[in-house]
């Protein structure tokens, strides 16, 4: 039925919900053996993309395949791909164990598998309680247990850390990493880079339905620039000297300092000495990943700071 490669391939994927372009011409691949983070701010189109990959939403254009096949051609999908999706449903009156047994028989695995995964996610003691009484984190664990029922080669998780306690998050992190080390494929979405930074090897960053960055996390780290913030006695003299030394990225900051990119502080200090400019303060600034993420995704639904006086409020609302 499928090639068993564990490869996820998304190609020119597009989804239009009426006037809303949820996903636009998105392309990326996810290879087995690594954890890939799928990142983007609220409304970026992460959930829509994952649901198209899982055959739940019909793409307007483009394809999404697992093992080289669209979802509905996988044959026994529960054994190939396991998924945790946001707002996934449970029948409130069904116990966790019965919920898992229902889907164990659908996938065609023995009931013992239900008990095994329920232990794996740490819900054994609540197995016979009705899911209606579960907390958000417990439901999230049950969703993960459901995804693991068929011992799938590919895991697709939409904000799985949502509602998990710190211990749960730490457990999930190691679990996903070891899952990937076994040669399986893990795709995990989040709207926080920091949340998955320690878990993922690859990232796909999207914003407004389009890819902004796609590659190893290491490459993203390297692309981040260092800046040197310097307080010179003579701004113009230092800027001229730096330009003469071939440094072009110089910026005047509102606080009176110069921001110099692409050099280290030593080089700036040496140049200043040669130009006879005194330095009152110098500091190297590392642009952190989170800020880079912000720059890449510059929120489509960024909120505004509350106006101190409502009558002076300018254009409020959504960006």
């Amino acid at each position, binding site marked *: 039925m499928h090639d068993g490669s564990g490869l996820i391939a998304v190609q020119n994927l597009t989804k239009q919900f009426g006037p809303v372009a949820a996903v636009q011409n998105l392309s990326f691949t996810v290879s087995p053996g690594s954890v890939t983070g799928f990142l983007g701010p609220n409304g970026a189109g992460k*959930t829509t993309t994952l649901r198209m990959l*899982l055959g739940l*939403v019909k793409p307007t254009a483009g394809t999404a395949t697992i093992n080289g096949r669209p979802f509905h051609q996988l044959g026994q*999908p529960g054994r190939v*791909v396991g998924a945790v999706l946001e707002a996934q*449903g449970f029948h409130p009156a*069904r116990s966790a164990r019965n919920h898992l047994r229902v*889907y164990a*028989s*659908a996938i065609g695995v023995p009931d013992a598998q239900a008990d095994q995964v329920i232990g794996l996610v740490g819900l054994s003691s609540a197995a016979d309680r009705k899911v209606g009484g579960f907390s958000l984190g417990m439901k999230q664990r049950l969703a993960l247990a459901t995804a693991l029922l068929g011992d799938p080669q590919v895991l697709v998780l939409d904000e799985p850390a949502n509602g998990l306690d710190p211990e749960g998050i730490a457990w999930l992190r190691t679990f996903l990493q070891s899952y990937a080390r076994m040669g399986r494929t893990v795709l995990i979405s989040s709207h926080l880079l920091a949340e998955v930074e320690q878990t993922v090897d690859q990232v796909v960053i999207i914003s407004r339905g389009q890819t902004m960055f796609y590659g190893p996390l290491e490459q993203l780290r390297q692309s981040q620039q260092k800046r040197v913030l310097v307080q010179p006695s003579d701004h113009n003299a230092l800027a001229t000297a730096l330009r003469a030394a071939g440094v072009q990225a110089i910026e005047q900051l509102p606080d009176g300092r110069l921001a110099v990119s692409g050099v280290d502080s030593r080089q700036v200090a040496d140049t200043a000495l040669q130009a006879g400019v005194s330095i009152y303060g110098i500091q190297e600034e590392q642009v952190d990943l989170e800020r880079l993420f912000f720059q890449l995704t510059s929120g489509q639904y960024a909120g505004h700071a509350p106006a101190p006086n409502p009558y002076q409020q300018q254009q409020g609302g959504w960006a």
Partner: protein
Amino acid sequence: MGNLVQAELRKTTTTGLWWGLLIPTAVLALGWGLATGLLGQFFVDFAASGDVDEVSDFLGVTPDQWKVSLFGMARAINISTIFPMIFGAMAISGELSRRTITTTFLTAPSRVHALLAKMLVYVLWGAIYGLVIMLFLGIGVVATSDSGQLPDAGGWVMLTLVCVLSSILMTMFGVGVGALIPNVAGAIVLLLLYFLVIENVLHGVLAYLEVPAVIGFLPNGSINGLTGSVSVDLFLSSAGVVPTEIEDVLRAIAGAAGAQDWWLSGIVFLGWAGVVFAGGWAVTQSKDIT
């Protein structure tokens, strides 16, 4: 497919809905059964005491041999099978509104597989509801009727058959409507309104327009015809030569005015259930599950 059928069966047995609806079904059937016997007794006593000789002449048998219980039983089945229909209506609409449909579709080879497995399981449940209806209806009728008003063994078998058949078909119809209308309350209200009010008004209009034959081709008209025609046939088989006008009156009493033969009625309703299910299937097949 066997796996999916087992999964769907487990879905129905791991919540309390099946018995939550089965209890009122049994109570209703028992109540109708008891009322049927009492009313029939009252009617037969009245007929035997008075000058209703003309009718008795028409029917060719004395009133105490009229199998009047048949009419009440036909009506009881028609009413009681509303419950399995509601049970069926919640099959797909319930999964859509609780969003469990996501996992159902993620664990099935295709949506067609998932829907067919569900339909099979609900056919089974329709049969179970039908048997329970017949059991409690029978208890009620036997407890309150004289043996002369009861059908013979063959009659019981035939009634049980159409009761189970009717219950299965109503459940299937419900499943289709529930797929078409992805909202539990909406699907149930529409079904109740249609089966209890709208079509009855329609029957009145059609009778007034003197085209009662059309009734037998409507959903409620045809499913009523399945049970009603059998009970009229059974009644007439033990009576003598009956004029057409009286036969029409009897059909109306059995709730099967304008109905076709029982088997044709069944096929007509199966057609309706098929149309509704095909519509629900088409809607579900292309639906974005978000």
